[in-house]
């Protein structure tokens, strides 16, 4: 049975033509100074826009709620701050306050004892060396 469409037979000449056409297309695409790339060279290179999440897109914020600070953000920020801040015992204010408290306590105890002692007569007067004895309040016997 004969086919309805008769296949064309390739000749050596058509192969040469196809090869030349393929070579020309390759040159046009590959060479930068080709007319196809000339338009690109005259324009300023476009800045490559990096990916940024929607919440940080200040130009076109779409979801306002994403821009608002959340409690988690505050917690993270405070934790970062606390991690950077020195320990309480490394601060001079801590030692200043502690020193003031200690000095104040010692002064209060000493002052209280002195006040109590003076309210209770203070020191007994020294015993006269010509006396045969000294006794009573504040005396050893």
């Amino acid at each position: 049975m004969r086919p309805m469409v008769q296949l064309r037979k390739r000749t050596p000449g058509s192969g040469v033509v196809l090869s030349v056409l393929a070579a020309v297309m390759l040159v046009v695409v590959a060479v930068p100074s080709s007319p196809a790339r000339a338009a690109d060279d005259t324009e300023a290179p476009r800045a490559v826009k990096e990916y940024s999440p929607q919440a940080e897109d200040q130009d076109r914020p779409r979801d306002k709620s994403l821009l608002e600070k959340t409690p988690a953000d505050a917690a993270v920020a405070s934790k970062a701050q606390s991690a950077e801040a020195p320990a309480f015992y490394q601060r001079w204010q801590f030692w200043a306050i502690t020193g003031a408290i200690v000095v104040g306590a010692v002064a209060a105890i000493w002052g209280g004892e002195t006040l109590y002692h003076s309210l209770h007569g203070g020191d007994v007067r020294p015993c006269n060396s010509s006396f045969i004895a000294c006794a009573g309040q504040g005396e050893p016997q």
Partner: protein
Amino acid sequence: MKRALLASCAVALLGAAGCDSYHYYDMSLVLGSTFTTALVGEAQLCKVNISGADSHEFNLTNCGVNSNDSNIPDVGTFEFATFADSGTLTFTVDAYNGITPTPNCLYGSGMTSQPASSQITQMGTITLQVTGTGCPNSGQ
């Protein structure tokens, strides 16, 4: 207003605590005429007892008499310190011819009363008189 409150609190605190001041009683101890030289030599211990506005007790070794009896009959002065400033202080001195103040060794005594006052120093005299024979063997 705040200062007045603080001042009144301080006054109240002082009033509650009270302010004590020392008062001194310098008492001269004298051996009476009944104390012969032999009896003075027997004195081993004198016990001083204070009663009344204040109470206290202490001892005088050899009743304050020197080893060579050079300070008789005026033995010397003892000082009693107290906070008492009112009432009466009674000074009693008992002489023993033994080392331990037991009743059977008591052989002399003297007493005087002194009004307690705000005066800082008061002076008085206690005269000892022989009241008994004391211990049979002195030095026990």
